[in-house]
């Protein structure tokens, strides 16, 4: 019985909270394991620095990910190079794994569209802020790939809150009907801003919602990167190469927790207890994987320090790189509305340019 065929009420786990092996380990090289560990630390450190940039006014509102590294890094590693990722807005860690430079994530949250200008060879879709809308994009792209005869998997992230939106329903339903090679990865971090998971739906799990679409749903310990990898890998493989009579899509519910605020504009102490946060911190994916790797002597103090240092340097470089990108030229506003500038936009642009010419930037930036 594959992991995906398990009763959705049972949570898949490989490592327990202390990093002890309690389930079958996925087949991952030491190198890969260290890379995952490093990327989790990278994401964690990035997060800390991003929050602080926001506090210093060097960045706008930012959605932190701490606590969710295991789910992000574990699942993103399960994708093959040719596969695609359709993120929501919090998966900065997963994006790194897929090749999106941290600099771009920073730029995006610094209010710069270039953050979404993904390089041609990076299979990551732009950030999606309107909740659950990206689920349909992933389904559509996955479906299109089959129509084109490609063999790729399409993974999309969304939160527990997103499962309440109509687009979640329509996206999973289309995927079932058209047997799209999609992996629906729900980062159930227990909260949709201040709304707890129980208020989102009366179903016992989110995984069981897959029953409505005729394909498999599975709940995994989302703070166990190895379990996440394992489950996602199976889903990716099934998407591309299902057994006879098996549908390609999978709904994965990765049970996890966001340690910090919803965004830097949010104050979680208003709606949740510190106790709860502390309890979940026991499940922190980073020490868990670290202890697993130390037990296997893949990591030691020295290596960990080295990693931490390199991670800090990488983030610092990314910040410097992002901050040294000049503010976008205002003209760029007009450039990409259409492939070609239509007459009415040319006029507006010219009026704009003339005003800027006459008055300088102060004509716009005052206040």
């Amino acid at each position, binding site marked *: 019985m594959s992991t995906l065929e398990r009763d959705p009420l049972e949570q898949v786990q490989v490592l327990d909270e202390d990093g002890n092996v309690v389930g079958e380990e996925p087949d991952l090289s030491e190198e890969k394991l260290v890379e995952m560990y490093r990327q989790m630390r990278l994401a964690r450190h990035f997060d800390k620095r991003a929050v602080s940039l926001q506090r210093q006014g060097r960045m706008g509102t930012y959605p932190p990910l701490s606590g969710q590294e295991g789910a992000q890094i574990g699942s993103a590693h399960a994708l093959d190079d040719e596969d695609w990722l359709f993120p929501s807005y919090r998966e900065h860690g997963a994006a790194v794994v897929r090749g999106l430079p941290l600099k771009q994530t920073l730029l995006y949250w610094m209010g710069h569209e270039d953050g979404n200008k*993904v390089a041609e060879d990076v299979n990551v879709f732009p950030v999606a802020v309107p909740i659950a809308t990206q689920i349909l994009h992933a389904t559509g792209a996955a*479906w299109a790939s089959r129509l084109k005869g490609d063999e790729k998997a399409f993974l999309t992230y969304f939160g527990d809150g997103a499962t309440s939106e*109509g687009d979640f329903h*329509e996206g999973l339903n289309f995927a079932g009907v058209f047997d799209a090679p999609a992996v629906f990865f729900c980062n159930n971090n227990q909260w949709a801003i201040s709304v707890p998971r129980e208020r989102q739906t009366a179903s016992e799990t989110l995984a069981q919602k897959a029953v409505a679409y005729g394909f498999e749903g599975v709940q995994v310990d989302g703070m166990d990167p190895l379990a996440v990898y394992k489950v996602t890998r199976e889903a990716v493989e099934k998407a591309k190469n299902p057994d006879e009579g098996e549908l390609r899509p999978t709904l994965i519910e990765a049970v996890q927790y966001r340690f910090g605020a919803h965004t830097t504009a949010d104050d979680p102490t208003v709606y949740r207890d510190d106790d709860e946060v502390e309890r979940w911190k026991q499940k922190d994916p980073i020490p868990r994987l670290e202890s697993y790797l130390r037990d296997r002597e893949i990591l030691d103090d020295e290596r960990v320090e080295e990693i931490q240092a390199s991670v800090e340097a990488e983030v610092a470089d990314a910040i410097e790189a992002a901050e040294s990108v000049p503010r976008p030229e205002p003209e*760029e506003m007009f450039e990409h509305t259409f492939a070609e500038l*239509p007459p009415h936009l040319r006029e507006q642009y010219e009026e704009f340019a003339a005003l800027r010419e006459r008055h300088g930037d102060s004509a716009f930036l005052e206040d």
Partner: protein
Amino acid sequence: MADAQQTQNLTLVQSVRDGLYTEMHNDDEVIVLGEDVGKNGGVFRATEGLYDEFGEDRVIDTPLAESGIVGCSVGMAAYGLKPVPEIQFSGFMYPAFDQIVSHVGRLRTRSRGRFTCPMVIRAPYGGGIRAPEHHSESKEAFYAHEPGLKVVIPSTPYDTKGLLISAIRDPDPVIFLEPKLIYRAFRGDVPEDDYEVPIGEAAVRREGEDVTVVTWGAMTRPTMEAAENLAEEGVECEVIDLRTISPIDKETIVESFEKTGRAAVVHEAPKKGGIGGEITAMLQEEALLYQEAPVKRITGFDVPFPLYALEDYYLPSPTRVEEGIRETVEF
């Protein structure tokens, strides 16, 4: 226009079908999807025969979910297909409104051109066919207000095919609203080959010196009728069929207005917030000094579209159009 041998005499809805057929032949990336577009050939038969011709992978019956249809089309378009989703009636585009507004019209900007969204969302629009509730919407203004969308409404079989082909070839998304009142009202010559009618260009349907009348879609007929009636009284209307509602062909309407100094706009959508206001604003921004009378808006009333027993009272009729134009002319 092609010579007689190469043209067919088609209704407007047949021309929709012909446009789809032609472009699906030209381009393998073009696919059609929506409710009942496959085996059934569309509830208005706009996709008739396409399923047999191109197969179920290119003419796809979907589940009943408009956001799903449009949202999946976004993913398909980004992945390199050219989807032509049909929404069964324009009144059922609203469940997809979020996808249309938040994504379809923005993907290019949001990704600075890395991802694009070439798709044509087709939907029959408008009243007058004794259709059930919610089936008579005419809200082109909603889409015209969203910056990244083009909005096209044909009024003749010839234009329909040419505009549809242009829309499918356009690298950006187009909302293509089809006047179902005149789906089968008359026939026109339509070349068998492919051809484009450019998006963004209005057509002068009738020349005249006295008053410029701007209209589109199903309202071109009562407008032309009113113009003929007025001509008998010596009032010569210049009737402009906008064809593209967004972006509007300002040059053509302004040039006409500079000649006539008077104008009316005829649309079946409600007046308040309708395209009539936009056109009025454009005319007086560009040519106020030629203006001799207020631009008259002859439109649907600002009430929900009534059930069909009253729809004829709701829609601008030739007499209403005539009276409205006369008001402008006699001002």
